[in-house]
């Protein structure tokens, strides 16, 4: 089975996120009044061949831990779609 994986990698909470701040500032300057708590990170999508959804999740988790996210500075969330 092929699964579509979506990974969202964001700066660890508490670490400064200047990119998020810059976007928040720009949004405000452009008149988007209600936006706050903006964070900017990386989105990674990929197709993964796996036996099952659980397998896909396990493999994707290993990918994140080995390569896709930096454990010192980043947190990730994973989503396995059809």
């Amino acid at each position, binding site marked *: 089975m092929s699964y579509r994986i979506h990974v969202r990698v964001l700066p660890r909470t508490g670490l400064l996120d200047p990119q998020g701040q810059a976007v928040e*500032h*720009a949004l405000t*300057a*452009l008149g988007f009044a209600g936006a706050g708590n903006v964070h900017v990170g990386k989105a990674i999508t990929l197709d993964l061949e796996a036996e099952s959804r659980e397998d896909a999740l396990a493999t994707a988790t290993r990918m994140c831990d080995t390569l896709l996210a930096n454990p010192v500075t980043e947190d990730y969330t994973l989503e396995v779609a059809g």
Partner: protein
Amino acid sequence: MTGSGTTPRAESFPGERPVTPEVVREHNLNQREYEAIVAMLGREPTLTELGVFSALWSEHCSYKHSKPILKTFPVTGDQVVQGPGENAGVLRLPDGWAVAFKVESHNHPSAVEPYQGAATGVGGILRDVFTMGARPVAVLNSLRLGPLEEPRNRYLFGGIVRGVGDYGNCVGVPTLGGEVYFSPGYRGNPLVNAMCVGLLRESDLATARAHGVGNILLTVGARTGRDGIHGASFASEELSAASEARRPQVQVGDPFTEKLLLEASLELITSGQIVAIQDMGAAGLTSSSAEMAARGGVGVLLDTSLVPTREPGMTPYEILLSESQERMLVVAEPARVAAIQTICAKWELSATPVGHVTDDGLFRVVHDGLLVVAIPGGDLVDACPIYHPEAVEGAEAIARRSRVPSIKAPDLTAALEQLLDAPSLASKRWVFEQYDSTVRASTAQGPGGDGGVVAVPGTAFGVAMTIDCNSRYVALDPYEGGKATVAEAARNIACTGALPLGITDCLNFGNPEKPEVFFQFREACRGIADACRAFDTPVTGGNVSFYNENPTGAIDPTPTVGMVGLLADLSHQVSSHFKAAGDAIAILGTSTGHLGGSSYWAEVLDAFCGAPPPVDLDAELRLQQFLVAAAQGGLLRSAHDLSDGGLAGALAECCIGGPYADQTLGAKVTLTGHADQVGGEGLLFGEDHGRALVSFLPGAAAQLAQLAAEHGVPWFPAGVVGAVDGTLHLTSPSLDLRWETPRLRQIYMDAIPRRMRQVAPSGLEQ
């Protein structure tokens, strides 16, 4: 025309649209051109063939409106190793070294997608240089945008600078200079001209001349995608709603692959495994293979089904016209293919045979066994109709030339501050701080002075370089403006202590079918040619970019000139800022207070008008020779040419110091006796050519005055460099002005950053 009526019949590729008059128009070919094609083939072309013609007969590839004018450039000289016609020009240096250099535009792609447009512009010019067997050692860039007060221009500027930087930084080539101007004439059609300078051993010079029947053509590097199909013809029409709809898919740059391609190409060239090499630039595989074949007087047979593609189902039309980046075409003997693949594999690149050299002179393409293109190769490249458009000076230009400002002169102290705050004149630190300028550890002078200087490894000499154009002068008087552009470039080179050697040019103009545009083009080229002849700086190549128009008309005519020079002894290089209190200051040349076309009128009095200052080529040459001699004698502490902003602008820059100076320096300048008949405004801000500002140890004064006299250069001792963080104090019979130099520095350094701190949206709502 050869081949008339004898060309083999090519087949339509399955699913291809029939060639109708509508389709021909879409391909930007006119009736006359289409008839020439039919006559050449002795039949109607297939759609794929039409695509091939539309690329090679586009303005960008065929130079159909510019060729007769370009032929008037001086192209020879003892220093010329390779003149126009190859991927880059090459000039001779001492000790068996040579310098390859070239400038190219990426204007339309940058208008659409500033980041990728600018990035791929840098990628393309790097490939032009390393294709010659030269290692790129420096890049420069010339940028023109509409005013920074408008968010769209800030967005474009930010994206372009990031794109230029990210690409060059990643490949590892330092940016040693450039220029940036802002003017309403570039609204909607920014200019991005990128220049590359490379070094090679003259004996390693490579060419893009295919020969040897049976030799193999290989594509090296990235896979071919649907990027930028028809980029060459897109660059050859005005930006409009219609062109927007035909807009090619954006080309995305991959500087990492470029770096691998650079190393692999240089290794292929020095290994002796290849016959010829050419990058796939505008019109991709089509122009690279057809031009290589035409140069060698041979034919080629390509099989597009062998080309590695990024997406399945690409047609021969798409594969032939794709402008995917980071690809090269190589010609080699069959026995060498394996060795070539080994070299490429080491650099993690593939090299794929896609065709061979033939003896029939035809440009043929098969796809899955079907012959889809068969065109006489020489005619394909050379037989595009050539046009001699009408040239008439525009009434508007004539009127502007005789106009004078309507606003009264403001307080002159404030005027200088206003001038230094104008983004076109202010420090470009915000820009070049984003460009690696020290990688390769050979930067003798980086951005922020008159010219960049790079050391040649293992020798005592260096190469100086600059890129310049004062488009306001060109707009107001194209002939004098053309001369002025070369003169300013040469002055910049000479100020570093280097001898000007030759130029490359990037001729950015509007629609050449408009008589007033063609007039600008013809006259500016005449000016460039005359100046190059006078200075013995031949034209070694360049690029023409027409159709730079937007809804309000043509851009300001912008014939950018890139120049290189030889700095014989690096230990005698001179930089442009004052060095220490107590040094003496002198002005070289004659000031008449010429304000027509000046930055002062344009930026302070909001008056883009007047006749620009005329250039005395003889006096310029003498000034250059004096500067080189004085530098070689080790007599100068600093030298800065007088250009935009005149004497006051140059003095301010010399006091403000380099981009990361520890402090500013004051100066006490007395002009009494220099040009007493000239009024205050003209004295401060006039832009007479042939002038420079130098500083030196007081003990060298007599020797310098003597040297100036020998060169017939007027020499005027004007004062002394003052204290750290001191005052610039300037007097003349009619002036007594003071500026605090730390304040001038603050204005000059912050002019661009303070504007760029305002938000610039990327998207549709602008």
